[in-house]
């Protein structure tokens, strides 16, 4: 149990640092509201190494903590919606045979953006915001792919060090 908690805490800390680094280095995609989502790398890795339940807890805790330190309450609701939806989809895709980390990460990236868009739609009460959906889908695809490539390299290494 102590080992589990320590690992989860380490992952949350890592996610927070990655979010902070992301704020420091502006990745400019030319479109507002799009970021790489480095913290998602931690969630994807946790999903593969520690299983669904622990990855979910890590995801929720890091969203709340990141929002309290760097963001605002409104940002937290957007992040929670995107985070929960993308987590459920990633869990589903990781259970289906034939998808690698890349596919899972891409599905997560796209649904993260869709989840945020749905909240934005409820807040603004305007369907026209859906016009932004295709752009966000492509953005989620690209960032998800990048995170997936990183996770694919990272997972075997962390797994190895865990056994030692």
């Amino acid at each position: 149990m102590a080992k589990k908690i320590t690992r989860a805490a380490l992952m949350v800390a890592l996610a927070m640092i990655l979010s902070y680094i992301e704020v420091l280095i502006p990745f400019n995609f030319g479109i507002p509201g799009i970021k790489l989502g480095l913290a998602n790398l931690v969630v994807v890795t946790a999903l593969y190494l520690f299983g669904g339940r622990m990855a979910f807890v890590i995801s929720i805790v890091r969203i709340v903590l990141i929002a309290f330190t760097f963001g605002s309450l409104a940002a937290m609701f957007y992040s929670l919606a995107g985070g929960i939806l993308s987590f459920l989809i990633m869990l589903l895709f990781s259970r289906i045979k034939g998808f690698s980390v890349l596919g899972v990460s891409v599905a997560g990236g796209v649904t993260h953006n869709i989840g945020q868009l749905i909240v934005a739609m409820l807040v603004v009460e305007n369907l026209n915001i859906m016009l932004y959906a295709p752009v966000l889908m492509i953005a989620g695809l690209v960032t998800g792919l990048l995170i997936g490539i990183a996770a694919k390299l990272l997972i075997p290494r962390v797994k190895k060090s865990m056994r030692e």
Partner: protein
Amino acid sequence: MKRKDLILIAVILIAALAGFFIVRKAQSGEGARVVITVDGKTYGTYSLDENRTIEIKDDLGYNKVVIADGTADVTQADCPDKICVDHAPISRDRETIICLPHKLVVEVKGGEASEIDAKTR
């Protein structure tokens, strides 16, 4: 990367592209319209992009509105002053041609904003 990954990526790309085209089409549908009102009541709404001729005949008189090449113009009328006929074709947002004797208003709604006229609020 596995095959299913590629299929997923392809599906997302296709969905996004389809969404893109739907958005573009929906936006073009919101293009400029020509609204004709007679005596305060809407007579008809027409797209400024479709060429057509509308003849308005009623107790007040006769007017012929021609929509062509993205502009609307009153080409014929049996009113005494013919101010509406002399008026230049309209194409920009909120431009109007008015035939007072026949209580006819031809107005462009939506589309490009006018460059020359502005109003203070």
